[in-house]
């Protein structure tokens, strides 16, 4: 378990002090996949580096499994870092070492014998489906393959935690998906706690159990992904989650309502039923829905017919089946 309490980080710059993190309080449970989302410059990379003390917090504590990382001696800290793996946006592989030797690297540092290290490295490469590229060099691999090597390398010393700093931000959509699948699989197989830093909502959506939203040095929202998703409280969360919902032009006459899906059964065809039941045409102006665990979340903007009675029938229908909606001006 990672407990971050009252954490502040201020950098001294030429233009005076710069506050990057302010009063961060966070608990990350064992075995979960925890997301930290925010725009660039929000402080999320600094926050993740405070966990393994690549950045030393100005004040506050980071307690991992009962040990306060901020109070460890240099030697103890090096020891502790071996139980925290980390992967990066730019992969950070050793360019002059082949894939196998890259995966062996953290084990070399930990003093594991060469034979044993290579055996374990091959198992890890097997897990990320790259055992056929063991003798290749990083320059011969694609971005996605490099990140898979980095994951194998990060998992080499059997860490209890895996920090992912924008691990998919340099990758295309399909490759991102494959990396996320691997992270999910590793989490399930080994029970490693995964901490994901990203600015992409889809990454949080795909693999995270809980999420913290970071905005201008502070945590503005924290909770289960499905909750934060359907009902974002902070402006920044709304912007990240429903980016397209802003600035929709009014197209035509007629009343518009926004209906909200709050975990309804995804197999129920709400809109078709509405049209069939009320016998009115509706125009879908905008929709952004997601299915999580067979439940649908999100919202949809409907334009109703110009006639009051038909619109009323739609509202009554929605009331009767228990779907939330709001009138839009």
């Amino acid at each position, binding site marked *: 378990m990672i407990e971050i309490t009252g954490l502040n980080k201020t950098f001294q710059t030429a233009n005076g002090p710069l506050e990057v993190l302010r009063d961060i309080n966070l608990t990350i449970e064992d075995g979960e996949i925890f997301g930290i989302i925010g725009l660039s410059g929000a402080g999320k990379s600094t926050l993740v580096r405070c966990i*393994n003390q*690549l950045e030393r917090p100005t004040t506050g504590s980071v307690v991992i499994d009962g040990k306060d990382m901020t109070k460890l001696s240099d030697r103890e*800290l*090096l*020891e*502790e*870092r*071996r139980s*925290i*793996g*980390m992967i*990066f946006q*730019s992969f*950070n*592989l*050793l*360019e*002059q*070492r*082949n894939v196998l030797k890259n995966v062996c*690297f*953290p084990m*070399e*540092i*930990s003093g594991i014998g060469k034979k044993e290290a290579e055996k374990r490295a091959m198992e890890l490469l097997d897990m990320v489906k790259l055992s056929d590229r063991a003798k290749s*060099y*990083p*320059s*011969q691999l694609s971005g996605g393959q490099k990140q898979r090597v*980095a994951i194998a390398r990060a998992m080499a*010393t059997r860490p209890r935690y895996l*920090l992912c700093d924008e691990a998919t931000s340099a990758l295309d959509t399909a490759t991102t998906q494959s990396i996320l699948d691997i992270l999910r699989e590793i989490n399930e197989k080994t029970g490693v706690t995964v901490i994901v830093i990203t600015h992409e909502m889809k990454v949080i959506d795909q693999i995270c159990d809980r999420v913290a939203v970071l905005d201008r040095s502070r945590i503005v929202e924290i909770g289960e992904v499905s909750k934060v998703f359907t009902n974002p409280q902070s402006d920044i969360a709304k912007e990240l989650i429903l980016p397209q919902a802003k600035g929709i032009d009014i197209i035509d006459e007629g009343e518009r309502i926004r209906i909200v899906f709050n975990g309804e059964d995804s197999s129920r065809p709400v809109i078709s039923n509405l049209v069939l039941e009320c016998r009115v045409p509706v125009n879908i102006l905008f929709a952004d829905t997601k299915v999580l665990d067979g439940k649908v979340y999100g919202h949809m903007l409907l334009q109703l017919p110009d006639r009051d009675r038909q619109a009323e029938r739609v509202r009554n229908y929605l009331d009767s089946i228990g779907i939330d909606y709001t009138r839009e001006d």
Partner: protein
Amino acid sequence: MFSEMLRRLWENGILQLGIWETIYMTFISTAFAYAIGLPLGVLLEVTDKDGIAPKPGLNKVVGIIVNAFRSIPFLILMVAMLPTAKFIVGTSLGNKAMIVTLVIAAAPYVARMVESSLKEVDRGVIEAAQSMGATVMDIIWKVLLPEAKPSLLINAVISTVTILGYSAMAGTIGGGGLGQIAITYGYQRYNNDIIWVCVILTILIVQVIQEVGTKIAHRVDKRNL
């Protein structure tokens, strides 16, 4: 077309000896200059304020010493170092003494070359090693030096050529080699052809060092596969 002197230098093997002395002085001096300059360069990079073990005070002191040696013109430094050479190898004349002065003159230069090669290593890779719990020594031996290897080799070629240039100057104060032949038999006895032969031979040696060195550096670089 060639002077009598040039023919005699060749027949007596003096020219051949000069070539050999130039090559051997250059390589021995480069090797010793790296023995001192490489650790010094690593120290400069590691203790830098953005380095892996910042020690601003130490960095400053070493930096000032290195700069001081580098700002003295080579010929003056060489003369000034002759007593040191005598102390180390027992004589202030001949190739042994010249090697000592060459090493002292070249080591600070090598240190800066090494430092600049190490600066090219991606910060992210160093950070990755730190995240794994690597010690400063781990990072020096397993990250900085191996990752900078191609650049270190390229810079070693440049350093070797520079030291070869210095070694020619050493001919004026008692060293051997092509520089000494050019001055003693060419310049001082008005045999221009001897000067030119020495110049051409020096150019050839530099070309070979440069070509071979660059090829090796390219071959060891795993980024060029």
